[in-house]
């Protein structure tokens, strides 16, 4: 197959497959944080700050996939 075609298919697969894990993880993290805030509303500030940082960490995985997909599409050394 043509390397261009392969890289387009790979880029199209990289984002959806790579975002399954972060999506599940972010859902669990937000659910846990909601639970904690409901139990202890006075700690909401600390919890949401930690939640934001944690979500950013998790989200990085999905962003890596996006960057890989864009590298395949725009800066692929093999497809020219």
């Amino acid at each position: 197959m043509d390397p261009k075609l392969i890289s387009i298919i790979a880029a199209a697969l990289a984002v959806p497959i790579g975002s399954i894990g972060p999506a599940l993880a972010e859902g669990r993290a937000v659910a846990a944080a909601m639970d904690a805030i409901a139990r202890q509303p006075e700690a909401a500030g600390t919890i949401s700050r930690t939640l934001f940082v944690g979500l950013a960490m998790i989200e990085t995985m999905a962003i890596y996939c996006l960057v890989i997909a864009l590298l395949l599409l725009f800066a692929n050394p093999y497809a020219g």
Partner: protein
Amino acid sequence: MANSPFAATILFQVGPLPITRPVVTTWGIMLVLSLGSWLLTRRLGRRPDRRQAMLEQLVTGIAGQIEAVMRTDMRPFMPLLGTLFIFLAVANLCGLLPGVEAPTSKLETPAALALIVFVSIHYFGVRSQGLLGYLASFAKPKLIMLPLNIVSEITRTFSLMVRLFGNVMSGEFVIALVVGLAGLFVPIPLMLLEILVGLVQAYIFTVLATVFIGAAVGGSERD
């Protein structure tokens, strides 16, 4: 087809040095922020007027956040981290102005900012613990963790860069695609989302830099 997100437009050349569009935008933001800060802080009084009250709210807000994360005196770190936050917020949001491209949506600007954070982590670490003490903190809790700690120094700087670049760039990319496909006023909800993403990313970049510097200064825990 949208332009490649990895290529920056070259505007003009200074000798052998090509000056790209993000560089010009960055210098514009720096000029606006420096002039604005100078103009806004010219007449500070004991009794704050509306302008000074807003500035004080911003500065004490940032200081409070830094102090809540670091749990130590934040004054040595306030110039770096506060400037980082304000610059990032302005840089992420200026992509919404017509004709301006957010400098953080190209790879060079996040790379430079992450490099600044990387250097300042070690600077503050060495300053607070001494060179030997800081180097010894890499071998904690056991000597076998030494390679992992060194690798994590590099990967977390890299992920700082990729996170900022990926978020801001993907936002602009999606807006460009929707404009191309659907029409002029369709991406306005996406631009509203982009305001939120830009501010959150500025906040997260600053908080993570604060956490890393705090870990290097405290020397007790690193992640």
